[in-house]
């Protein structure tokens, strides 16, 4: 029994998610190998080799893998997967894109967003925007699953795994045209200890500056509700919720966010939740550890001065 973890990286460095997915793999109890697939990804592969408890790091390094396209990655991983009992990836946009393809090619079902390991074939995952937790037993010979990384603590980087080069190069049917990634000095949403999140009430992209000032003072990341993203105040990758990013920071400050089921699904496992809203009936207060009924345009600048 060996588990294969698909690494998340940008060729230069490993994303924090990978160390969390390895923690999930260790909870399953099998040996753990990591696959790093990319283009000029040697640096990321050597970081993966340091992850605690990893036996081997498989490296598929080719220009065909530069943009993380699902069809050729799916074929590559399902081929390698023949040797593994479990195949895990983070429930990131890459993992969600590629892993179902892998499962279908292997003729097995997939488990999405696993948050707990009960045994080597039984896992817990949220359904209905986290309003129910389903314990599911996989009856398939191979278990293919995406892992909600916020539910696991990263393993340490004190290992020394063997690097194994794979020569298989599979071309994609898809051509990459362009990419625009949000540039930010702030920590990544999935990885931040503090998140300051804004909703429709911010009313403009300029007004988000007051949240940015608070986030920066706390060394935190910026998040948003769907309404704020749809209105174009902030880029799409800041959306927190059922269909955006799922986060569980030490501190989540929800500002001018009503607390719709779909938003709560993305943040209700945060350790401490603060809600600032001028409507005392806003549902967000039901999940908040500290609620403040106030106009955000007064409260946020004042709070920024005090922290």
């Amino acid at each position, binding site marked *: 029994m060996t588990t294969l973890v698909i690494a998340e990286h940008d060729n230069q460095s490993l994303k924090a998610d990978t160390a969390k997915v390895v923690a999930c793999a260790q909870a399953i109890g099998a040996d753990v190998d990591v696959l790093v697939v990319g283009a000029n990804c040697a640096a990321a592969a050597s970081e993966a080799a340091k992850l605690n408890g990893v036996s081997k790091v498989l490296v598929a390094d080719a220009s065909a893998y530069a943009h993380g396209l699902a069809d050729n990655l799916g074929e590559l991983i399902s081929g390698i997967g023949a040797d593994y009992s479990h195949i895990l990836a983070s429930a990131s946009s890459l993992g969600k894109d590629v892993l179902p393809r892998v499962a279908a090619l292997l003729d097995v079902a997939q488990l999405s967003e696993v948050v707990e390991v009960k045994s080597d074939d039984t896992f817990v995952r949220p359904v209905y925007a986290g309003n129910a*937790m389903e314990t599911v037993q996989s009856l398939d010979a191979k278990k293919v699953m995406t892992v909600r990384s916020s539910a696991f603590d990263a393993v340490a980087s004190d290992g020394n795994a063997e690097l194994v080069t794979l020569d298989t190069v599979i071309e994609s049917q898809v051509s990459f045209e362009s990419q625009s990634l949000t540039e930010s000095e702030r920590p990544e949403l999935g990885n931040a200890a503090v998140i300051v999140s804004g909703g429709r009430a911010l009313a403009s992209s300029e007004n988000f500056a007051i949240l940015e000032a608070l986030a920066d003072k706390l060394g935190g990341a910026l998040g948003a509700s769907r309404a704020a993203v749809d209105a174009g105040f902030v880029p799409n990758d800041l959306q927190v919720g059922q269909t955006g990013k799922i986060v569980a920071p030490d501190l989540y400050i929800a500002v001018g966010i009503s607390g719709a089921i779909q938003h709560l699904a993305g943040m209700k496992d945060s350790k401490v939740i603060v809600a600032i809203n001028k409507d005392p009936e806003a549902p967000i207060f039901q999940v908040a550890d500290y609620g403040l009924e106030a106009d955000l345009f007064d409260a946020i600048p004042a709070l920024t001065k005090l922290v």
Partner: protein
Amino acid sequence: MKVLVPVKRVVDANVKVRVNADNTAVDTANLKMAINPFCEIAVEEAVRLKEAGVVSEIVVATVGPKAAQEQLRTAMALGADRGIHVETDDSYCALSIAKILNAIQTNEQAELIILGKQSIDGDNNQTGQMLAALAKLPQATFASEVSVADGAVSVTREIDGGLQTIKMPLPAVITADLRLNEPRYAKLPNIMKAKRKPLDTVSVDSLGVTLGEHQKVISVTPPAERQAGVMVGSVEELADKLKNEAKVI
């Protein structure tokens, strides 16, 4: 060009569901049901492509109980031309659904298949990708912009760090994200017209697919409750609590 849009009947997005008393399932009896919001976005996109003259026929398909025909009618009221209902009271995992849809695609030979990226009940986010793999087609998931030209489709995708644009030869599979479009409301005359549009009912067996048993649900439980919090009276009190009580700043 023909487009296939698979859709799903789910509990309405505004309903907060509860787990049943014996912790075996979510209680869906007597709840308001609707077309999955992402599927609705997929239908809308197909209709817009038809209005733009790119698409000539929109086929919607669903796998589900008799009542799921309501969702096919909703899709036809938005502008789909005909429906295929694979009638079953069994609930299937995404892989089995993808196999059924693949059998439909084998018959239909659509040049574009647009699905919602996830259904808001199972939150699986798998079916489109699995269908693409089984049909050996390229895929573009989490689409926020689609344009078809010269036998190819360009799709802008919402990815973790921002946006990515890729180009696929047709036929291809696309899964719709929230910002792809804002679905229209069906007008009354269109709702009436939809009742007369062709709707075929078929069985899983008649499609000739063999489905396995892949997963067993052991239990369904409510999520952990958060402990009730407190309201603070001022920004000063909030800052103090965060520093000295919660110790998070």
